């Protein structure tokens, strides 16, 4: 294995860990569709960047930031538009824009189509650095705003009514969410990054009995999904994103079975 792939694996582990941690909040807030919506926004942004010849990360960041801020504008109880309906509308818009962009590309579309599935070939040294930095930034964010994030998880309505700076923390969270998904997109793929957000967190919620253990378990499950997925993809020459998704789904299945068995035993 080339020494560069150790770096790529490291980036993969950080990517898996950060999306796993992200998932704790997205799944906990019962808005798993946020991941789909923002990842498709990042995908559309990347496609238009390729069309315009600019750095794909910038396009992905701008599009996902647009989606994140649009979602942040919907206030619980105040807006007449349900968050999940807004997510569906944004998702469809972004998917439409992405496929329109693919249609507009002249010549070979292999690079763009690769974005849908993810590939190690898209990983550059700069992306390894960016993924690592953003992963660390999110961990710092989760530590600094731990008490506010807990209330947001329990109830955004209570947070808003009782003077928690809910909108500020929620906007920051969505912005970071958009950036993390944008930089991880080339590795895992726009169609499958959603799974890396939901499966590790959902698995952690299945088996853990405490909030802290959910955070640790989801982060570790995310890292394991990415690492094992990478290795399988590398040795069997299979699409990276697909391998990561299957591993993360297997972890969820194992957790669900474990919970079932534990309940039967109790």
């Amino acid at each position, binding site marked *: 294995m080339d020494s560069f792939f150790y770096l790529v694996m490291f980036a993969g582990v950080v990517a898996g860990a950060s999306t796993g941690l992200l998932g704790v909040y997205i799944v*906990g*807030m*019962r808005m798993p569709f946020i991941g789909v919506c923002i990842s498709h926004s990042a995908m559309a942004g990347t496609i238009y960047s390729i069309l315009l010849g600019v750095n794909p990360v910038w396009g992905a960041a701008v599009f996902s930031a647009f989606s994140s801020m649009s979602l942040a504008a919907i206030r*619980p*109880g*105040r807006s*007449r538009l349900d968050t999940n309906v807004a997510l569906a509308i944004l998702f469809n818009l972004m998917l439409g824009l992405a496929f329109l962009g693919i249609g507009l590309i002249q010549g070979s579309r292999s690079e763009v189509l690769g974005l849908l599935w993810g590939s190690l070939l898209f990983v550059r040294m700069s992306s390894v650095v960016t993924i690592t930095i953003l992963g660390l930034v999110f961990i710092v964010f989760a530590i*600094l*705003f*731990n*008490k*506010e994030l*807990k*209330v947001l*998880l*329990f*109830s955004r*309505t*209570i*947070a*808003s*009514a*009782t*003077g*928690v*700076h*809910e*909108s*500020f*923390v929620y906007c920051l969270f969505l912005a970071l969410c958009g950036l993390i998904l944008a930089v991880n997109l080339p590795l895992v793929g726009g169609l499958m990054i959603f799974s890396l957000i939901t499966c590790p967190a959902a698995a952690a*919620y299945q088996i*853990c*009995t*405490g*909030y802290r*253990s*959910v955070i640790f378990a989801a982060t570790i499950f995310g890292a394991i999904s990415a690492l094992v997925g990478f290795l399988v993809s590398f040795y069997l020459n299979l699409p990276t994103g697909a391998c990561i998704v299957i591993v993360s789904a297997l972890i969820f299945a194992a957790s669900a079975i474990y919970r079932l068995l534990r309940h039967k035993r109790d």
Partner: protein
Amino acid sequence: MTRGRISLSNVEVRWSDRSILAVEDMQIRQGEFVGIIGTNGAGKTTFLKVCCGLIRPNRGTIKLDGRDLAELNAWRKANFRKHIGYIPQAAEYNTELPFTLRELVAMGRTSVKALLRPLNKEDYEIVDNWIERLGLSERRSQTFRSLSGGEQQKALIARAMAQDPEILMLDEPCSNLDFNWKYQITEIIEQLHRETKVTVVMVSHETSLLPSDCSRIVLLHEGKVLADGDVEEVFKSEVLERAYQCRIETLKIAGRRYTINKSRV
């Protein structure tokens, strides 16, 4: 700093063409215990949400201690609302998360502490004190989801009280509880009101659940205030019959008011 006064002036909340809440003028004084009653869809929950700024009315002003909430930006509004204890209906919070009872009650300290400041020993002393006062000490390490409905409601009250509130807003705190728990919860609320002199606004479907401390009742019907006054004034058969559209007899037993639908007797 909030002191517990709420004033609504010419407030209207509309949904499409329908007015779901219209309050011309209402003052809730500091330390008052106000019960909000009415039929389904009368606007009780909307009233509470308007009072704490969760719903912005189409017209009118809501003031907390003389400050118009609409004039404040999101940051200042949050600072202004940090002494509002709010207990919504169960559908508005996630009972499935693995928070322990202590973690949940500690959430009450979140808005009291500045951003980036973690909770300290003093905060946890306040949290443990409220857990103890509400008789939940033995349950403090249990997850919220493993508690009974009544214990969950107690935990939510402890969370709201840990916030050191000046206004306590409760949206049907006794729904889905058995009769014994219903009375336990209302007695706790009554006792807290007596001890802390916090302003309480409590929505209830059952008139018997409004404690004897509840000196003022607001009867809502189709979004409008049909009656607003002391218990004797509002709990008259002819007043209630206008809202509930049936023959009603009111009874007073041990300081609480019961209503009987005479159309079915």
